[in-house]
């Protein structure tokens, strides 16, 4: 398939998944991936409530330090506290949610329901973790370097801009690699040892499409993180009580990105594969 055709197929696949994400069954994954971090934010914000403090006081103290035990320090510290929690749990939860969304995108029209897709993903969780956890951890590292480079732009513009560019390319590459692996992982009969070969094959018949998909997601994620940081900073600084709501909105955007990645990978692979054959 020509590169331009691949790009057109990528655009169509992305648009279709974004539309499907708000309708059942993918909307269930979107909802769950939004509610889990939002609930964590609400629980951490309300740690002082007598019903929660026996469990959450030590958690908040450990995650946010002494300042997080006072108002409004708790709410100002919510984003970094959630980021720390995310760093600890992302290797497990992100592959699980990706597998769930990918299974629904692949088999949802074939009659697999939301619960069935979740159970199937849980059954095959080790496969998802073996392939997905290293990519999630690598992406966390890359995004951490990118965040630090963004804060250093004012002090050393040239070096920091180069770092931002390099981390952007690395992020796009990780997402493209993930997009090539997801369709192989979602099929139960693909052995783990065959995954590198599957990825190579996907690159050979749809390299331009996958690269564009990875770069597009990386660009959207970059823009969303920049806007999110700006909005969070101004909202939480002046209205700390709005922090859990703002974080829930950020979680919803991140969840939409995750569903678009997982569903888009499956739909894109199918589109490129059909045309190629």
């Amino acid at each position, binding site marked *: 398939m020509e590169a331009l055709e691949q790009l057109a197929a990528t655009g169509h696949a992305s648009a279709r998944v974004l539309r499907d994400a708000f309708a059942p069954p993918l909307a269930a994954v979107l909802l769950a991936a939004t509610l889990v971090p939002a609930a964590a934010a609400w629980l951490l914000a309300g740690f*002082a409530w007598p019903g*929660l*403090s*026996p469990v959450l006081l030590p958690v908040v103290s450990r995650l946010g330090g002494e300042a997080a035990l*006072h108002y409004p320090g*708790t709410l100002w510290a919510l984003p970094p506290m959630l980021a720390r929690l995310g760093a600890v749990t992302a290797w497990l939860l992100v592959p699980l949610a990706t597998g769930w969304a990918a299974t629904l995108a692949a088999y949802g029209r074939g009659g697999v329901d939301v619960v069935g897709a979740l159970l199937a993903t849980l059954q095959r969780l080790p496969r998802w973790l073996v392939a997905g956890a290293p990519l999630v951890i690598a992406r966390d590292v890359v995004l951490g370097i990118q965040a630090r480079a963004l804060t250093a732009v004012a002090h050393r513009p040239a070096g920091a801009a180069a770092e931002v560019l390099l981390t952007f390319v690395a992020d796009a590459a990780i997402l493209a690699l993930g997009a090539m692996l997801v369709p192989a992982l979602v099929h139960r009969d693909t052995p783990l040892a065959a995954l590198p070969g599957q990825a190579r094959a996907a690159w050979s018949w749809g390299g331009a499409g996958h690269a564009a998909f990875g770069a597009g997601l990386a660009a959207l994620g970059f823009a969303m993180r920049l806007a999110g940081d700006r909005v969070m900073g101004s909202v939480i600084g002046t209205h700390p009580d709005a922090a859990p709501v703002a974080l829930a909105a950020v979680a919803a955007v991140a969840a939409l990105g995750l569903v678009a990645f997982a569903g888009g990978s499956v739909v894109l692979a199918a589109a490129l594969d059909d045309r190629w054959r």
Partner: protein
Amino acid sequence: MAVTRRAAAAAALLLVAAIAGCGGDPELWARWNAERLLWRARRLEARAAAGDPVAWQRAAAALDRVAALRHAPAGAPPAAGPRTRDVAALAGTAALLRARLDAVAGREADAERAYARVATDWAGIDSVAVAARAARAVLLERLARDREAVAEWGGLARRAASPDSAGVAPWTACRTAAAEAVRLLARLGRTAEADSLGDAASAALGAEAARMADRTIADDLWAAVAELRRRAGHYDAARAALRAALSEPGADDARAARVLELATLSREALEPDTAVRYAAWAAHEFSGDIANSAMLELAHAWEDAGVADSSLPVYKRLIEQLPSMGGLAARARLDRARLLDRTGHWEAARAELRALAMMQPTDPCGQAALVEIVRHHVREGEAVFARVESSHALETLDRLLAVQGDAALRVEALGARAEVLALMGRAAAAESVYAGAWRAYPDLPAAAFAGWRAARVADSLLHDPRDAAALYRDLAARSADPDIRWRARQRLAADATPARGTPAAGGSR
């Protein structure tokens, strides 16, 4: 199935217990809520202080609600946990802010009573009680109740000598208490009592500093002793206290500032040679802002010692090495120009003054440079030059006033404008400009000084006692500078005394 039911029942029981708050810490919840209420009230208070009348009502209500959270008359029950004491301290902070809200709104008598109540109600919490007493003392002075203010500061000074808390706020207030009491006593003419209190407080603070050697607070206590001794004119004792502060191992951060203070004290004690040594020490041993300030001090010390040849190169080095737009560079340029003028190098001085006025027109030193040029020509009797330079200065200042909205800067520029007018013999115009600056920005201490100058011009140059008395009354009631308030009250009292004794005197005016 039975196991599942039991597990579900246990989970439901746990959920109910969590919702009911069993096993939790109600004190933590109470503190968190108190902090939340106080934070909101503080935001409203900031808006109220900025002059929003609607916010004032809401802030007062919010602060009253937080202040009502205190648990016992003395702030918190002695057996209360640390978080309950935190809540009591938060409530006390709210009560302090509530009183300040009254003071900002001009209800100073109400605020004074509120501070007294807070000091009593939160007597067990230093951070609240001492701050309330210090704020009350300041208000008492504003209300012309100097004797009560002395008693309040004196009480705080005695408390400073027997510390029972390591809170920051109480220490800050206690350190200044003795100096404030001594100042007020001296103002009331009770000099013997002031000396006695100063000696006693110095001895007590010094003993406390010695007892607390090796702790950071010892450095602050020695600094307080030095300040007390300096105000009493005992410069040797003041320097001894600062040297003791320098010997404290915990004083490393403040070391540079202490050496600089030693240089300043030596200059005040009219010992320029010693000042030169301390300033040179500070300039060579330390770096950054403190080294630059030390170099300026060194130049001043050489000047005091009458060695202009040594002073001028120091000024020049400072001007060359500092960024040209900084306040310290402007100060150095102005002082160098004044020294050049005094030593008969007017051409060089004028070049320096012109450069300063052109490069930093918004700096007070830049405006002072314009005045200096006019002053020189008036002093030398060069009327034509004076007229030309004054026109140029007034035009420059008018241009600055037309584009600047910053209150402090406008007051400075108006002061410079009035000074040029006064130098040119236009006393009525000068008085009008000074009075305008005071009336436009009565909340600024610099504007209070302008008001004082207006009253003095009206009194002594324009011979207009009615206008002067109106300004003195205004200053006595509203000045942000307590010293000018007091001086205005003194002037009013002095004017009223002969008028009561000799009715004819009033008529003869």
